[in-house]
Structure formats: C-alpha cells, structure tokens
C-alpha cells in the first residue's frame, strides 16, 4: 500500500488552504450582505458592518418579508417555476420520445431542425413582436410558453431514452400496449434520474429568469421576484441627483432594506439546492457516455 509522505501532506495542506480561501472569497460577500440585513442602518452607513452584524435587529427583515409587493412577487415566481417546470418536462419528454426512434422516417431531418434553433434564433426584436402579436404582453404565459422546450435538455432526454433497451417496449407491445401507455407506464417511470435533473435545470432557469419579464411584463402585480429585486438593488447605484428629484432621494430604500431583500429572495431557492444538488452532478454526466 502506498504510504503518504510528508510531501503529500504538505501538498494536501496547500490544496486545502487554497480551496478554503476560494470558498471564503465566494462566501464572504454573501455573509456581508446577510450581516447588513440584520444590522442597524447607522452602522451600515458608517461602514462598520463587515462579517458580523453591528446593532442586531430584525425589523428590517420583518419589514421586507411583510411587504405586499415582495410577497406578491414571490408568489408569481413560485407560480412560474412550478407550472413552467412541470409543463416543460411534459412537453420536452413528449417531443423527445418520438425523436429517440431513429427508425422512423425523417427523424434525422427533424433533429437537425431542432438543433438549428439551438444555434440560430430570431433575436430580441422578432421575439418581442411575436409575443406581442400573440397577445401575451403582460401575461405570465409569455414567460412560460417560449421556454417550454430547451433543445439541449431535449437532446439529453432523447439520448437517455435511446439508452433504454428496446426489448422492453417490444414486450409491452406484445401485451397490447399502445404508444402512450408505453411512454407513460414504462419509459417515464424508468427515467426518474434524467427527469429530476432536467426538472432542476428548468426550475433554476424559470426562477432566475430576469430578462424576459423585464421585456414582457409591465404590470406590477405580475412582476416576478427577480424583477422586484432588480428595482430595489439598482436604486443605490442610480442615486445621483442628475435625473432624480429630492423626493426620490428622500425615499431611497436604506442599504439595510436592500440587503434584507436580497437575502429574503435568495433563501427560497437556497433551501431547494441541498436536496437537489446530487442531481445536478448526475445531470452533468447524463448522456456523456453513449452506450
């Protein structure tokens, strides 16, 4: 058996130190924001809040999470994420299944067409015009319908389907099952890992989407959390007196309120991560080995 030498230990130690430092670099800004969210405003302004809160209080946090707009935005985000993810999974799986049947005539061309949309698309203006003409401006559908199929996820599911033994389907057919029964009763139950992974991909994508709601949503009652967050956080950087009147300056949300909003809107998705992280890692491997 290989015995670890002093050199190995030194090297390991070095690696640990470097990794811990890298970890701290990403963690500390977050800790700082968290501390600000539970500190007194005067201490934040005087630059006294670093890693630990100064003048501990929870009023700011309470103020933020009881804000009706915050709650409404949170609800909209949850709604989009849950409905969007479920619908995307269904539609993507329904599309991937026939595409995994190479023996069907013309499938090669259809796949090429899908892949084509991965590389080229109309761009922002045509997309905006399309959404507008579909009457989806100010409609949550505008955030869900266009994102139903991501070709990348489609290909991952397709290659997973292809890896399932064909004899399973043949035996089911012999028993008299039709294509839908095969898909829903045999293929999908066997595809748990890939569906979980892709579901997570979709969920994160829907949750983090900021750009599309910015374009398509005007009504404040339909704003998802990311848009709400952007409004609060950007406030500080634009607080020059140039295009702002004193009234706006007097009403700029305090730094503490901004920090608390950032924390409060990060926590929901943060809570989901530990439970789904293993699928994330699995997901990277799915489809990487063609068998």
């Amino acid at each position, binding site marked *: 058996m290989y015995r670890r030498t002093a050199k190995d230990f030194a090297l390991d130690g070095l690696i640990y130190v470097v990794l811990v430092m890298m970890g701290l670099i990403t963690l500390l800004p977050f800790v700082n924001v968290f501390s600000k969210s539970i500190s007194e405003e005067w201490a934040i302004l005087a630059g006294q809040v670093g890693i630990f809160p100064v003048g501990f209080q929870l009023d700011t946090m309470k103020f933020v999470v009881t804000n009706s707009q915050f709650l409404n935005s949170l609800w909209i985000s949850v709604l989009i994420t849950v409905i969007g993810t479920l619908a995307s999974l269904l539609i993507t799986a329904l599309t991937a299944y026939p595409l995994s049947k190479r023996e069907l005539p013309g499938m090669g061309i259809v796949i090429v067409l899908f892949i084509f949309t991965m590389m080229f698309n109309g761009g922002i203006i045509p997309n905006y015009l399309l959404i507008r003409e579909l009457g989806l401006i100010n409609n949550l559908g505008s955030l869900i319908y266009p994102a139903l199929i991501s070709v990348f996820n489609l290909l991952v599911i397709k290659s997973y389907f292809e890896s399932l033994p064909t004899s399973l389907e043949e035996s089911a057919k012999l028993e008299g099952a039709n294509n839908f029964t095969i898909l829903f009763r045999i293929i999908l139950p066997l595809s748990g890992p890939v569906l979980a992974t892709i579901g997570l991909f979709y969920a994160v994508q829907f949750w983090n989407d900021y750009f599309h709601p910015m374009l398509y949503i005007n009504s404040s009652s339909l704003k998802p959390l990311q848009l709400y967050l952007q*409004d609060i956080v950007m406030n500080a950087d634009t607080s020059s007196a140039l295009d702002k009147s004193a*009234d706006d300056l007097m009403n700029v949300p305090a730094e503490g309120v901004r920090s608390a909003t950032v924390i409060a809107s990060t926590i929901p998705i943060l809570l989901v991560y530990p439970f789904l992280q293993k699928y994330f890692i699995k997901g990277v491997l799915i489809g990487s080995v063609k068998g």
Partner: protein
Amino acid sequence: MQKAYKLMSVMAMSALLVTTMAACAGNNGKNNEGSGNGTNGGTEATAKPDAEKPGLKRLNVWQNDDYNAYPVAKLLEEKTGYKVQYDMLPQDKWAEKLNLIMSSGEAYDIVTSYSDMALYSDYAQKGALVDLTPLIEEFGPNIKAAIKPESMEALKVNGKLYAIPTTVTYEINSSILIRTDWLDKLGLSMPTTTDELTNVLKQFKEQDPGGNGDRNVPLTIKGDQSMIDNLVGAFGIANTWNDVDGKLVSRVMDPAYKDYVAYVGSLYEQGLIDREFVANKDATAKEKFASGVAGAIVVHWADIPAISDSLTKTKPEAKFAFIPALKGPNGEAGFAANAGFDRLTYVPKASNNPEEAIKWINASLETETFKNMAIGVEGTHYNVVDGAYEPIQPIFTDERNLANNYMAGTDEENYPQYWQARVRKNPVMFEAFSFLNNETAAEAKIKNVLGLAPYMQQYSKTNQQLGTMVGDYTVKLIAGAESIEGLADFQSKFMSSGGEAVSKEINDWYATTK
C-alpha cells in the same frame, strides 16, 4: 458578456421603437383597432366601455410601494370619480422600457416619466403623443389655472403641447457639509471665502481635530464630483453653461475654468481633498463622513437624515452645517439653481380615452383636491405653524410620502410651499434645506437658464455626453494625471465632439430671449 447583452437589448429596443413609431405615425389617430388592442385584450375587459367614467390606465415611475394600494390612490378615486389602474416603470433603464411600451402601442391613458426632453420630443415628433392643446382648452380649466404659461411654452414641440409638467420645487441641491464641532475645537469660524476654506482644511489636516491619525480626511468627494458645488460658484461657473459677456459658454471653454482647476488641484496636491477621491463611490464618501473620518463632504441636503443618524451614533459630539456660498478670488459666489421640470405627463396616441385622461388630470388639479393629495387634511396630516405646514407623523409619511408620484402637473403657485412639509419631516434636514434655499441671498442663486429652454435637438442629445467628457477630464486635471497645458487640445476635442453644435444652438436661442 452581460454588458454585451445589455447593450444589444438597448440597441434592439431603440431599433424597435423606430420601426413601430414610424408605423404609428403612418396611420395617425385611430390605430386602436390594429396593433393597439391585440396586445392587451385583458385590459379591455376590465375597463367598462360604456360607463360614464371609464377606468383609466396610468403608467408611472418606479416607487417602492404598490401604487394601487397607497392611500393617495384611494383619495384620488374618491375625488375624481375615476378608477385608475397604475403600473410602473422599472427603476433601472426606465427609458428603454418606456420606449418598448410606447412602441408596442399599449393602451395607457396617462404616462408620467422623469423629465427627459430628448425622449419626450422624440415621441412627440414621431406622432406617438396626443396634442393636448385643444383638450386642455375644452376640458382643462384647472390645468390652465395651475400651470404657468411659461412652463407650457417650454414644452411645446413644433408649436403643440404634448405634456403637462411637474416643475421642480426648490432651487439648490448641495453644498459642502462641514463638521462645525471641528471648527469650534480649533477656534475657527465658518469659512466665507475660498482662501478661508483652504485654511480651514489645512488646519483640519494638520491638527486632526477628530483624532483620526492617518485616516484623517479634510474634505471628501465622490469620484465623479469634479465640479464641486459651491466652489464652482466661487469661480463663476456654477452651471454647466454660464453667461459670459452675454453668451452661454460651457465650463471647459470658460476663462475661469483654469482658475477653478488650479484651485481644486492645489487642494488635492496639499492633501486637503481626499487622496482616494477618484475611487470613491457615493457610499464610500458618505461612509468616511458618517464614521467621523472626514471633516467635510459634498452632499445633497436630502442625504442628510441618513448621514446625521449615523454620525450622531458613531460620534455623539459631532455637529455639522452647510458652508454658505463662498466668495472666490474675484468676489464671485453662488450656487447652481434648479429650473425646469422634474416629471412630464403625457397621453399616448394608443390611449383609448384621451379626453377622459385630461378630465382626470383636470380633476386632480382642482385646488382643494390637489392640496389634499399633496399634504393631506389639516389637523390629520399637518398643522399650520407660523404660516408653514408642519407634518404630523407618522401619518404624513404613511399616507402622503409618495404623493408626488401621483401628480400630473402641480399647482405651481402653491406647491413649493406645500412641498416643504415633506422636508420638515426631518428637522435636521429641514434646517439644512432652509439654509441653502430660504436663507441664501437671491443673487447667490445662479439660475440655470437652460432649465426652461425649449427643446433643442443637439443640446438634448449630446449635453450629457459632453458633461461626462468634461467631468472625466477635470478629474484627471485635479488628480494631476493631465497637465493644464493640454487644455487647448481638449477644448478643440470638446468642440469637435459636439460642443460647437450645441454652443451654436443654445446661443441662437439665448439671443432671442433678450
């Protein structure tokens, strides 16, 4: 990557604006049947078409509260009889979003945005706005009474009025805020001239009255604050464009510019201005003052409550006050005085009820309704003390703090008085505000003549860009990264980058005002 994406989206939106605006202009008037309605079938359903007073849709600037739930919305609904549904623009990049909404033909009846003349005149010229002149004539007696004719005049584009302004309510923004307890400690009096200021800052540096050691900063400013309010006035260049022998001249072309830069540059060289000012953000500068490290800072009076709270916690003995208009070497002194508009309110062509929109605005400007909207009810929201409106807290803040966002035009005669109730919410802030605005002599308020100037294409388009260019250059001069010898080169660069065109345009106009 992110930046490229942003840039792309901005470009895309403006391109979209151009194309669809052109379409709007093409079929002037009733284009509601086409693109307008397709986009918002939903709103059509909520607006009762045949009711006597239809529901109105209003788009407004961002605020950190739900427009529809704020008490002022309810008040206005009661007083005007109209149910208004409010939406708001984002805080960041509001202009791009507004472009998108205007070009998509969404049927807003009233749109209020920050006063961006370039944007406004663009909409007006492309036919995206309703001409308000006949509507005000017919339905707007209160509007005519409330808004001064010169305000209306300044907003006319090709002789037609497309917007109702909300005029700025006070003149002076900022000055140098100084620690008076430091002054007292050193036996110094409040500086009145630039030389005295130099001396005071020197004493701050040498004697370190705050006991800050190496961290001691006599005067801190932000990185983009190369034109220091109050000091620019002392050198006769209070505004971006100043009258020199009857002509408007940009600061950088002004003969006094050299003197100003030499003075501020020498302050920096002696270590009297924050050594790190180039890297200072707004928050960094405030942090230095609020933690007691800096003896003076340049701030807007509206920033004072936060700074004051923080400073009294960290340094309980601290006292501060604004420095009055300092006299320069040639005896000049003064502050740039605001003139012009804060918000503009207009009616897009896509509106389904332009007449009702004007009727609503008219109703909101009815004297008593407007007063109630601005400061509430006497005895409930405010008291009259010595002829001034004192807010009653916390109800004033809870129910009227955001009232200004609901205004579409103001009672220009009375509003500045009502408005001061908002400043009185915080006595420390009011004192500072009052010192700058009520106690500064009229001749030290140097009015920005361009504030009420009519729309000028070159000026609207390039002035901000030129301002940034001059600002950056001035920072380099002050910090010693550029030498004043190169001024002539920079001046010719300034002129060729649009300075010449702007100068000609505004002076052609300026000549007509005399």
